[in-house]
């Protein structure tokens, strides 16, 4: 009997020891991160901090310098992680719909009740707050100051299109853009962005808005289907790309002029007759060697070096193409690494917010396809390199 009890005690000790060891390893982040895949992410302007919201509602703050991370909440809105420009302050919303702006040290800067957001942005002075709901309506402000900016139908929507209405605000708070699903060619003058009587929105495609008046400035059309777009930090450039592989750029000083970007086999020449051989529609003069891997079907675009360089991320690909504003030609292709598989795999259009950059510091952060880890890259504008500097599985 005594021997049996001793055995039991040894077994219990072993099990408890194993549990304690796992607890220690988890607490010291030695087993990787224990979270669902990243759904939304923001990078601080300094490039040191990254905030991410995960499919299992975790909110994690990552410190690139210390190579550490902290779970701040287990009840975060999936699409609420966002870094405030020019500050070590990030924005998030909990599942009780409280939006919080807090510093990386935990200091509270702002807090308010809001509807469940499907993406939001805020200016560095906290004066401009824009948020989208599941029907791709856009609102300015919160509480008593909340006003509709775009509310003209329920289709397309997050559910119907399978992606967010992406929002982006420039650093000077001059313009913001919305980008969702482009299949509309109507003019601004023909349809108000506020119209409760219609079912189908006229503002699903890329639209440039005045950040002060909250009025549409231009419909930046040409893309088709699920479209992502962003605006440069200085507010001068809007770049877009879509799930059909088309990509365009506009200078906000002349938004009527659309500039088509080259695909990876040539720049499509518009306005030619219909009956030419297929190859004659393409200018190949500025092409560079194409490795096997980049895909034109684009899941996201993001500025990586101030307002000068931006990246285009192909769907089902671990390559990104580097472009320079003002030029239609790809400058370089970057292999982001095959493993762990990035969020760019699996047509994750509803998770293109799991790709975030700090154009000021050249930091790119990406979620992984099916686990909660992240990959972080550093861009060198002189050498034109993009090096993976941190991977958490």
């Amino acid at each position, binding site marked *: 009997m005594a021997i049996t009890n001793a055995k039991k005690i040894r077994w219990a000790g072993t099990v408890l020891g194993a549990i304690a060891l796992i607890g220690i390893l988890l607490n010291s982040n030695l087993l990787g991160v224990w979270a669902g895949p990243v759904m939304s992410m923001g990078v601080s302007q300094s490039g040191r901090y990254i905030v991410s919201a995960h499919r299992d509602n975790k909110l994690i703050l990552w410190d690139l310098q210390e190579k550490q991370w902290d779970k701040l909440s287990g009840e975060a809105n999936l699409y609420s992680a966002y870094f405030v420009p020019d500050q070590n302050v990030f924005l998030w919303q909990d599942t009780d719909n409280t939006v919080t702006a807090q510093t990386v040290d935990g200091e509270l800067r702002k807090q308010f009740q809001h509807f469940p957001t499907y993406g939001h942005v805020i200016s560095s002075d906290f004066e401009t707050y824009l948020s989208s709901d599941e029907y791709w309506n856009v609102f300015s402000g919160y509480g008593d100051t909340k006003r509709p900016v775009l509310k003209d139908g329920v289709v397309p929507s997050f559910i119907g299109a399978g992606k967010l209405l992406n929002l982006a605000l420039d650093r000077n708070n001059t313009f913001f853009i919305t980008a969702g699903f482009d299949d509309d060619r109507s003019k601004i003058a023909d349809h108000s962005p506020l119209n409760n009587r219609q079912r189908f929105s006229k503002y699903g495609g890329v639209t440039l808005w005045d950040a002060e008046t909250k009025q549409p400035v231009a419909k930046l059309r040409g893309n088709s*289907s699920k479209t992502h777009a962003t605006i440069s930090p200085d507010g001068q450039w809007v770049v877009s790309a879509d799930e059909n592989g088309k990509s365009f750029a506009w200078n906000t000083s002349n938004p009527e002029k659309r500039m088509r970007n080259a695909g990876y086999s040539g720049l499509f020449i518009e306005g030619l007759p219909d009956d030419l051989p297929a190859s004659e529609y393409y200018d190949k003069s500025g092409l560079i060697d194409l490795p096997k891997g980049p895909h034109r079907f684009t899941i996201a675009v993001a500025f990586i070096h101030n307002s000068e360089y931006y990246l285009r991320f192909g769907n089902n690909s671990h390559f990104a193409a580097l472009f320079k504003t003002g030029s239609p030609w790809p400058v370089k292709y970057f292999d982001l690494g095959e493993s762990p598989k990035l969020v760019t795999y699996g047509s994750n259009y509803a998770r293109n917010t799991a790709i975030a950059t700090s154009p000021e510091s050249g930091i790119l952060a990406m979620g992984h396809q099916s686990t909660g880890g992240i990959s972080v890259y550093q861009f060198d504008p002189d050498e034109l390199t993009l090096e993976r500097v941190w991977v958490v599985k």
Partner: protein
Amino acid sequence: MNSGKSNLVDHLFLRQPAVADNALTNETSRDVHPLGLGVFPSARKIVVLHSRGDGILGAGEDEESAWWQKALLRSSPAALIATTAWNLANSEDAKDDVLGYFRGAYDKKWWTFPSFLVNGFGPAIEELYKDYLPLTFKAQMTTYPQLSSYVPEALKRTVKANWDRLEQDILAEADALWQPCIDCLRNGERPPEYTLLAPLNHRASVSPQVAKDYVLRLKKLAVNDWVPERSPRPALGHVGFEEVTDNASPDFDQFISGLRDKNEIDQVNQSAWLFSHSGMRIPSEEVFNRSYDAAIMRRIVSEGGGFGHY
């Protein structure tokens, strides 16, 4: 378009189409279907709704599988069967998923399903052209395997005569129905059906040139014992245009890429809701709202009139 044909339909929506992903090319040489049924170069403004989750059109992606399922799948054949059974038991449309595990019923369209049958097109062709048999020397080889390298002169003459007669009759049928088909289309009437050219009945009309090409393909197939030489292309309704417009792919198609850049074709990945092929026929409310309403009706309303115009 390059084909020079007038555009018959103003705006076409293809939901999970069970056709090859390169079906819209103008290069018939890219058609891997042994009888030339794989490409439709006269199509025009088209929106393709495709889904990686359509088990009829192809195998599903396993990225969303649980980690334990992935681990099991890699461990043993028994585990593979167990995991497959688990997935089927938990699927909303088990039939689709069964077919998905075996690469989809779509392959049947290409006469390669089930893959363990080795007689390819033989039974179907021999039924269709039963009045022209034999068209190969295979019967002789089977009866006298020891004489496999020897073919009697009489049989050679018979086979050649059968081919000559079949070719003549096929071309005659094409000639006879070419103009009536065109007249019917002009008058908005249903065109007559082909008999010897029945495999091409999906075309509104078969030109004499297409008929000649068909005979050539048929002869090539006969030489290969009715077994297609090339693997089927993936279904357009499964993968969209991704591979054929990927510049680095050996299957890159400049023409289809051009259609995309000219806004004549679009694709919309709807894997999130079109996870069952049967969902097209009897759409759930979810499919109706998210696919039909959001991806089809919206385009029609946004783009104004035109839909349904011929």
